[in-house]
């Protein structure tokens, strides 16, 4: 099953070298993304991205088993969704 992952349009963000600061204005929290998080944040971009497409981009960029990458990606998405920075929608089989 693949889902469209989008940045919450209410967030603000800026990249500083390999890290990114993301602000969720509704709770006024600042979240720091590490290099992998920054890669995923940029891959999701303004338009959003399918999880399958994100996983393919990760596989191209990182030398790690697919299952490890999938777990990292799911953990990232789940955590940022919980913080209100990402939204998952239109999941399809």
């Amino acid at each position: 099953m693949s889902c469209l992952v989008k940045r919450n349009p209410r967030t603000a963000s800026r990249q500083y070298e390999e890290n990114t600061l993301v602000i969720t204005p509704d709770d006024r929290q600042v979240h720091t993304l590490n290099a992998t998080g920054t890669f995923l944040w940029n891959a999701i971009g303004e338009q959003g991205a399918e999880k399958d497409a994100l996983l393919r981009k990760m596989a191209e960029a990182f030398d790690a088993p697919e299952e490890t990458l999938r777990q990292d990606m799911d953990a990232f998405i789940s955590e940022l969704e919980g913080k209100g920075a990402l939204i998952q929608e239109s999941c399809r089989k």
Partner: protein
Amino acid sequence: MKEYFRTHSTPVIAYLELTLRCNQACVHCYLERERPGEREELSRPEIRVMLEGLAQLGTLILVFTGGEIFLRKDLLEILEESRKLGFAVVLFTNGTLITPEHVSRLYDLAPLGIEISLHGADPATHDAVTGAPGSFESALGAIRLLRQKGLRVKIKGNLLKSNRGDYNDLIALADGLGCEYTMDPFIFPCRDKDPAPLSERLGPDILKTVFSDSRLIRGKKEGPGKEYLEEPENRLCGAGANVLTVCSNGDVFPCLPLKLKAGSIRETSIARIWNESPVFQRLRTYRVKDLEACRECPSKKHCLRCSALTYNETGDLLGCSPMSMQISEVRREIYRKKALSGV
């Protein structure tokens, strides 16, 4: 990221004075009497270029201030453009010109903060400070509209002789409206050095009350650890290091009240001003150890030093401001009494 911002000069916060026109004439206003008019204000294309430059420099938070920002008819378009470029936006306003249509569009812009100045909890007190009859009711109406929409509002009060430093009713009003609040006892001279606002400063007795009130104490309380002015290698403040201000006519300053011109974006790109201006380069070299006046001061542990206040009061960026001295002595006395009582 703290280490990154300590070692890199990045203007994380930019204050943008979109207009210096105002529909109020507050008794304690620090703006200069002679200031740029509407014709001299930056145009939308000029602002767009500046915003793109700030995004490249790493600015994350834009604080829109004035004057009264809602006097600019294109304010919401500027805010929308800012959000598209990834900035978080904060608005400083007197609230009097905010309409239901504004509120609806503001919600979509997800502002990080909307800060509205209220200088009294009743029309007579507030309007006497602003010199604008009806301004209290207009501001209150805007706050209610914003809160109904679920937007976070902070009420900003200045503690003045004109409002007798009476902030209790204002806090009750803010609580009733579901607003955050801040009550500020710091009154600056005008940026053109006119001392007129200083006549509004409160005396030490009311300052003792203010700095003893747990509702008004921000940040960490003084403890046994070293405070900011006790660390010799600390920067003086963020002005010119992590903060900048762009005036309505494109002039660039280190921070809102510190009128040391670093350049004009009408002549030089914001990136070049930030990276090469001698004003900014000099500010970045200053450290706490350069503050000779503070070195032996018994109150430095309790001081809320502000370089802009010092400069505007004394003409010496590295000197000691009488207001800071007064406040640090008040805080020191409060701390001493608390320590003695074991509270």
